[in-house]
């Protein structure tokens, strides 16, 4: 008769004898468990923060949608038209560019004028 490997014998014995241990129900253990369950707070404690969070997100969503519909200016304000030279309506961007150009021209003119004033050859 061939001998079985010790490991195999032990593994088989462990599996067959210990997998289903003969343990009978102990009522005392249930009484202990019942006391633990009673002492523990109910699930309301877990649900409340979730509920609050849901309400908060709902309010936030409704407010955002209302803002988009009723006051779009609050979310993305448009560029206001501004008056330039008394009678011309141009957006602020163009106004700024023109003003810079005008300022440059004015400075150039002033330099030319001063050169003309200080020049030994006087204009007739």
């Amino acid at each position, binding site marked *: 008769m061939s001998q079985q490997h010790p490991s195999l*014998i032990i593994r088989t*014995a*462990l599996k067959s004898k*210990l*997998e289903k241990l003969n*343990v*009978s129900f102990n009522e005392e253990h249930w009484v202990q*468990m*019942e006391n633990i369950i009673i002492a523990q707070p109910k699930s309301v404690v877990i649900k409340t923060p979730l509920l609050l969070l849901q309400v908060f997100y709902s309010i936030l969503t409704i407010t955002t949608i209302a803002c988009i519909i009723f006051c779009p200016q609050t979310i993305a304000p448009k560029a206001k038209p501004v008056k330039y030279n008394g009678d011309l309506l141009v957006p602020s961007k163009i106004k700024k560019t023109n003003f810079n150009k005008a300022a440059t021209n004015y400075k150039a003119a002033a330099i030319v004028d001063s050169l003309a004033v200080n020049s030994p050859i006087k204009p007739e």
Partner: protein
Amino acid sequence: MTNEDLIQGCIKQEHEAQKELYKLFYTELMGFCMRMSCDYDEAVSLFQDGFIRIYKDIRTEKINTSLAKWTKLKMVNNTVELLRKNIQQHVISSTGRGTEQSNTELSDFTFVEQLSEEQLLKALQKLPVMYRILVNLTYIDTLPAQEIAKLVDMSEGTLFSNTSKAEFSLKNIIAQYYFKPQNEPTAS
């Protein structure tokens, strides 16, 4: 009461359903805790703790497998977690026993077949905690190696080497405590 009724009852935190669930899985899960612990008191504590987790998780998780599988998985996870938390304490208390293993080299281990359930359980409970977890999950509960490695936070290579060390250690304990040259198993 069907399993679905039990689940719904436990979700509503009905005592009847909770007791029914407790009774239904008591034998299997308490047996598992006894194998995983070093004594009866620890087993009861592990079992109660595992059931608290089951009652808690049944309310929040969706059960995709059978109720029996789900409860067993919850108990396994909880027990391994708790034992690993106390591992330092257990290692210190059990290393002494681990080092004084006998060097008995036996070619014939057939006497193990004659050992009683209680004797084998006692031998298993004498193992250091991590070895006990590995022997239980690998040879008795026969969980896949990948799953065990994840549970005990080890690589598969380390798991295999530790499992074989655990088996060697168990062999030594059995030989030391129960082997007699005449092959007469002694009472514990």
